[in-house]
């Protein structure tokens, strides 16, 4: 059973657009929700993370929106750039157990 469901599977936006990636979870015991960025041939790298007591977090051009009652969270990338083209994974964790979504392949067209 997939602990974290992620959509869409792929996304294409124009430079300057705002791609949005969505994730949903079921286990209310999760207490940490990170987003990772992965380039081909590299391991995932932490982008931004949020705890469930906060509804929004911004770091630079990246924003997480968190809806605890709906058990959903999303990543928004402001003013997207071609260099943002990568695969993005959401995750949810409690303790040392991390569960990843299936990933979203983002392409930003110049």
């Amino acid at each position, binding site marked *: 059973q997939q602990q974290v469901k992620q959509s869409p599977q792929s996304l294409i936006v124009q430079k300057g657009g705002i791609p949005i990636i969505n994730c949903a979870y079921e286990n209310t015991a999760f207490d940490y929700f990170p987003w990772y960025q992965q380039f081909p*041939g590299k*391991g995932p790298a*932490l982008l931004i993370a949020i705890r469930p007591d906060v509804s929004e977090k911004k770091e630079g051009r990246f924003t997480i929106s968190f809806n605890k009652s709906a058990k959903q969270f999303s990543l928004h990338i402001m003013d997207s750039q071609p260099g943002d083209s990568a695969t993005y994974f959401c995750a949810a*964790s409690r303790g040392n*157990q991390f569960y990843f979504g299936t*990933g979203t392949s983002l392409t930003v067209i110049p």
Partner: protein
Amino acid sequence: GAGVSQTPSNKVTEKGKYVELRCDPISGHTALYWYRQSLGQGPEFLIYFQGTGAADDSGLPNDRFFAVRPEGSVSTLKIQRTERGDSAVYLCASSPAGGGSYNEQFFGPGTRLTVL
């Protein structure tokens, strides 16, 4: 500074063979994780070490998989009697003292295992 390194970067083996995958974590990181990433999927948790001991091995798919970290630093993931379904990228991550939520995991580039 040096990040997490994994060797080899690619490993091709035949069905039924034994393989070892190595992970060198960031110096000083006591927590170490192994994940498996199949094509088009997110990383799947395999095992977590805190120091030398396997604190959680609930993600290992079966007894063909085993991992060690004898001195609390380098870890080796061992796969016996490999099967074609074991083909994937095996990722290692390390984290500062304590591991768990809130402590950032730093991932290595992975070892791509292909079982023919």
